């Protein structure tokens, strides 16, 4: 899907080019850019050295120079090397130049665990980026969004970070028209009235599965897909919470200082008197993500944990 959106973007706008590790000859480590090198040539599909600081910085420069670069970073762990370019340069230039410069850069970052690639390739650090003013942070969780969000990101005059969960790359789905989707609002993926399950990215399928399980037990769960991690669609979150009066936030990041923590804080600040139970979080255990399969599974939010948390806030089961 991503490949399709790349092709569309590059056909539409000659300023768009792609660079990153293994995007050319190898076709991308998740085969996202396979075949594009033959179609668009090495000028527009550029393999880079293993130097995130260097090539993300080059992307910032190209964007400042009028291009529309898409820079791929293989995992969010590796993206930490490029944080300086993203936070100190890309996010800040519009502000520091008094609006004279903008950085129309799109950075695509793979994130998340579940592939047994251990503690240097599996983390979910979206919240680090969602913390930074000047960035738009997206997290497509559906095939439609994976394809449609890129066009919106390229149209944005400021830097946009797109986090793609590694477990979603093989997801399949129908592609309805139009091919572009908005990059401002959250989406209700399942309407319900008893508990609001608020999540994004790789945790969305788990939350939807939990909602189905809960439905079998008479609990009507609503599932909110955040889609945009910065700026958060707070009105959508509050509307759902006000309706259901109970909220569980599911976030593959570590609990402490997480995006889930920010969402719970917003709920507490703005919807306290609509709550029927303290908001709950289902996050990753506070350990580096383990290699062993059973330990990796145990460290991550899972459908069973979401079901249990939802039941706990409803009161039909007291948490252990």
């Amino acid at each position, binding site marked *: 899907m991503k490949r399709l959106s790349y092709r569309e973007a590059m056909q539409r706008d000659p300023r768009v080019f792609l660079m990153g590790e293994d995007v050319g000859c190898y076709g991308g480590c998740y085969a996202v850019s396979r075949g594009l090198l033959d179609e668009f040539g090495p000028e527009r599909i550029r393999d880079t050295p293993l130097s995130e600081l260097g090539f993300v910085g080059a992307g910032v420069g190209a964007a400042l120079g009028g291009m529309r670069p898409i820079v791929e970073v293989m995992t969010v762990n590796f993206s930490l090397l490029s944080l300086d370019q993203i936070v100190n340069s890309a996010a800040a230039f519009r502000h520091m130049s008094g609006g004279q410069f903008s950085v129309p850069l799109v950075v695509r970052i793979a994130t998340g665990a579940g592939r047994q690639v251990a503690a240097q390739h599996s983390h979910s650090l979206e919240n680090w980026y969602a913390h930074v003013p000047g960035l738009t942070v997206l997290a497509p969780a559906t095939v439609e969004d994976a394809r449609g969000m890129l066009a919106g990101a390229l149209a944005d005059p400021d830097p946009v970070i797109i986090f793609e969960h590694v477990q979603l790359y093989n997801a399949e789905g129908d592609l309805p028209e139009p091919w572009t989707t908005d990059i401002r609002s959250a989406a209700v993926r399942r309407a319900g009235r008893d508990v609001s399950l608020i999540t994004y990215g790789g945790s969305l399928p788990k939350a939807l599965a939990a909602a189905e399980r809960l439905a079998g037990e008479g609990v009507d769960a609503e599932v909110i897909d955040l889609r945009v991690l910065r700026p958060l669609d707070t009105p959508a979150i509050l509307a759902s919470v006000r309706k259901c009066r109970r909220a569980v936030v599911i976030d593959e990041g570590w609990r402490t200082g997480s995006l889930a923590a920010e969402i719970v804080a917003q709920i507490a600040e703005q919807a306290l008197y*609509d709550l029927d139970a*303290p908001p709950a979080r289902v996050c990753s255990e506070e350990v580096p993500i383990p290699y062993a399969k059973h330990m990796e599974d145990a460290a991550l939010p899972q459908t069973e944990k979401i079901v249990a948390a939802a039941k706990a806030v409803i*009161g039909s089961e*007291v948490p252990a």
Partner: protein
Amino acid sequence: MIEFKLPSLGADMDQGKLVEWKVKPGDVVKRGQVVAVVDTSKAAVEVEIWHDGTMLEQLVPVGETVPVGTVLATLLAPGETPEQAAAQRRAAPAARPAPKQTAPAAAVAAPISATLAQRKPISPAARKHARELNVDVEGIAGTGPHGAVTVEDVEKAAAAARAGAVPAAADRYAEMRKAIAAAMSRSKREIPHYYLSETIPMQRAAEWLARENEKRPVTERILIGALQIKAVALALAKTPELNGFWKNGTFEPATGVHIGVAISIRQGGLIPPAIHDVDKKTLAELMRALSDLVARARAGSLRSSEMSDPTITVTNLGETGVESVFGVIYPPQVALVGFGRMEARPWSEDGKLFTAPLVTASLSADHRASNGIRGARFLAELRERLQHPEEL
């Protein structure tokens, strides 16, 4: 300043428990508006107010039981300012009877010394909703996480309060039985009853009604019982001494014909709420009022005016199969009309013998207010009215 006092909602009521305020201080209220729900021994009753005004201060909290006549709230008369009202109150401090303290009221007072850890878990939404519904949230058992009171718990408690289930069902039954016992004992002790009965041919009424109902949708069909009630209302025009109250050793004729309809409710309860101005209602209006009244009586949402002012009572035990009923008058009323079952029996008219649907109508009347001959006149008029159903 207007004082809104707990009205007597029937001869057998001497106190009531405030279940819900329907308005808040500052709300503008209109004459006839329901402003509170009061639990009597018989039902949760919606109490109307009889003045236009603005709610100033609610003196009796929800959950408190107070005697009839207690000032429940003060209101500003139209155009009056709070300062004027305060001055008036200072001038007459004794005008406000102290509400009777009861055990539940004491329990309502929040334990101020409660520490955070001992605090009952109540969700913020439930607390807010309870305030909106005027429900005592401290008294509700919680079903949420860690036993917290949730919005659903509050709604259930409020619904239970509205349905009059606040005292356990068994208690309510005992209370209602006690109230019926008090009223009926008083009636038989004080009222010298006389009883008359009359067999009324219902052929014309039944045939006319069948034709009428053919023209109506099923939901608007009229029952024979509505015809009987209307005939009672019209017949009373010629014998007004049966329609009114015996109070302080004298008969007070009523100004309207408000017929109390004896309605059985679950668990052996009996309520005779009034349909107002029956003589002025069309049959269709009467039928609608009757259906509405039965439904609301069984749901426990009657209004204070319906409870307090029937001027005569009609009871119909026909459905249960008895031939006739000689009822006990509900004081301070002076008469009760009973109808038995309608069935085809031998009947003769104009020298011919045939079968016809008949019903036995009876009158129990207070001999202090009327004599037998007037009662007989009433039953004759009732029979006559039922022979001309098209005029009902």
